[in-house]
């Protein structure tokens, strides 16, 4: 079933991709193939392999239970939030929170998780920000 769903999604993607290739604006001077030619080939390849999944699906993979799935979903949300908050709150604050969250969810004791978070944020800031001089996100306090 999972493979059939993948095939369905892939087929939809192929159709969308081919449609998006049709609306590529006509260039002033073009070569024999044009900017849309190769994408059409790719869309066909995508469609053919998707049809194959629908016709001959592999055995079902072992999906995680619902609460494990929720776990991954939450981690995903936290990471999206991190990308969002990083430029606003600064590197150290946001990194502490996210590292602590991940460490906690991966099985650390809450206290250990907080320590991991603080240590990771400060450690990475010192190594990459101060020693190597990379541009890390600056929050309201400058770090």
């Amino acid at each position, binding site marked *: 079933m999972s493979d059939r769903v993948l095939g369905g999604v892939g087929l939809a993607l192929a159709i969308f991709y081919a449609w998006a290739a049709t609306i590529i604006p006509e260039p002033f001077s073009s070569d024999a193939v044009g900017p849309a030619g190769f994408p059409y080939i790719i869309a066909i390849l995508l469609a053919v392999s998707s049809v194959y999944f629908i016709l001959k699906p592999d055995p079902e993979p072992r999906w995680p239970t619902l609460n494990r799935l929720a776990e991954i979903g939450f981690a995903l949300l936290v990471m999206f939030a991190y990308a969002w908050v990083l430029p606003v709150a600064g590197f150290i604050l946001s990194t502490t929170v996210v590292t602590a969250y991940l460490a906690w969810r991966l099985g650390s004791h809450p206290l250990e998780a907080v320590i991991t978070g603080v240590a990771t944020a400060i450690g*990475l800031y010192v190594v990459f920000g101060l020693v190597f001089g990379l541009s890390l996100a600056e929050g309201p306090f400058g770090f």
Partner: protein
Amino acid sequence: MEVLANLADGFAVALTWQNLALALVGCFLGTMMGALPGLGPANGVAILIPLAFTLGLDAVAALILLTSVYYGAMYGGRISSILLNIPGDEPAMMTCLDGYPMAQAGRAGEALALSGVASFVGAFFATWGLVFLAPLLVQIALLFGPAEYFVLYTLAFATLGGIAATNQAKSAFAAALGIGIAMIGVDTQTGVQRFTFGEVHLFDGIDFLIAIVGLFALSEVFVFLEHQGRGVQGTARGRMAIGRVTPSLAILRYCTPTMIRSTVLGFVAGVLPGAGASLGSFLAYSVERQVADPRGKTFGKGDPRGVAAPEAGNNAASGGALVPMLALGVPGSGTTAVLLAVLLTLNIQPGPLLFQNSPDVVWGLIAALFIGNFMLLALNIPMVGLFTRVLLIPTRILMPVVAMIAFIGIYSITGSTFELMLMVGFGALGWVLRKLDVPLVPIILGILLGNEMEVNLRRAMTISNGDWTTLFDSWLALTLWAIAVVGFVLPMFLGKRVKRKMAQETEEVEGTLD
């Protein structure tokens, strides 16, 4: 010999204090990453690329750092195989079979030292193979026109799944996905927008580093979350004494024929399209078992030759895999695809022209590989105890740190929230595709090579005035097509069998363990 003169120039480039220090750091980091289960060579190099880039290292220095990591990770994979019976990376799987029993018998130190020497032998002679074979391949590649290049890229995708691939449709799907992503952005030939839908962030296309770090490193974090921090293979089974860490001369002499055989096999497996290090170590181990112990008396019960063979094999293969990557610009495995990303990030397009236009980069790199080998040998024999300590870092602390380093790397090159979100999205996509058994390497390779593939197709068509038969017009092109078709079709018949055999071999030997 012109080759040796070139190599000498390469050493002149590589032998500066800064480069030596970088090689040392790279070897050290690489060995640690290889040793840690869940952080293979591809992941390790991937998260370090953006960092090496933003550190402002010049091309040769950055290459030296990252290839040292690559070789180091290949060495490091064996440590957890031997001590914990958990392969640090995929190619180290076969090392478990005899390495762990040796460790159980109190000979862990000996196994580690022997496998260190075997790794060195494999990698060292494979690098010599690279020195002599790559220029030959370059001679052939100079005959390639755009049409041949297009077919060569097709060949690379067709054979990427390898002989053990079970579902070629999934490889094709993944390749199409990757190439499709590469099309996003401004078309370089006509200047029109493609697939951007007016989104400014997409005008330059999607940076392949974002995709690599997301698909490899972040999806690994999700896998660990799925298994509640325990990883895929389960928990460690307890630790054991290391014992003596220097191999005795007798055991080295005993294993010398093994190492020679396995190095040759591994190198050939590495050069061929669609094989790579995993198959190299598998081939080396099973052939050695046939040759040395046909009745199965000692193999799987801690035979030192069973440790030496896969290690020499996988390190020779990882050296051999560099041949097509450097000479043709076509990587044959996931890790070499990541190395290709390194080169492209540094604005170096591998292929025959690289050998002609910037020999200092090529030969400097090869010289760096030699230096890295000696450093790894020197690091690994006396300091193996230190590396085994790394295994004590629990994944519940390690994985968050890895994720954060991935974020730092991407943020430091893009500085934008959009790109970070894209990376997270790729991480989630990577997790789903891994569940569905869709290989990730063709996606990466598609993003890396998609544009180059299209450019060559369009150039060929322009030359031929839109006549598609130009793709089949030369013997060279026809030969490449033939290899591509065979490489794609053969696994459909053999893939399941090879995979079953690999599983059988592993189980058989493990069965005798319990």
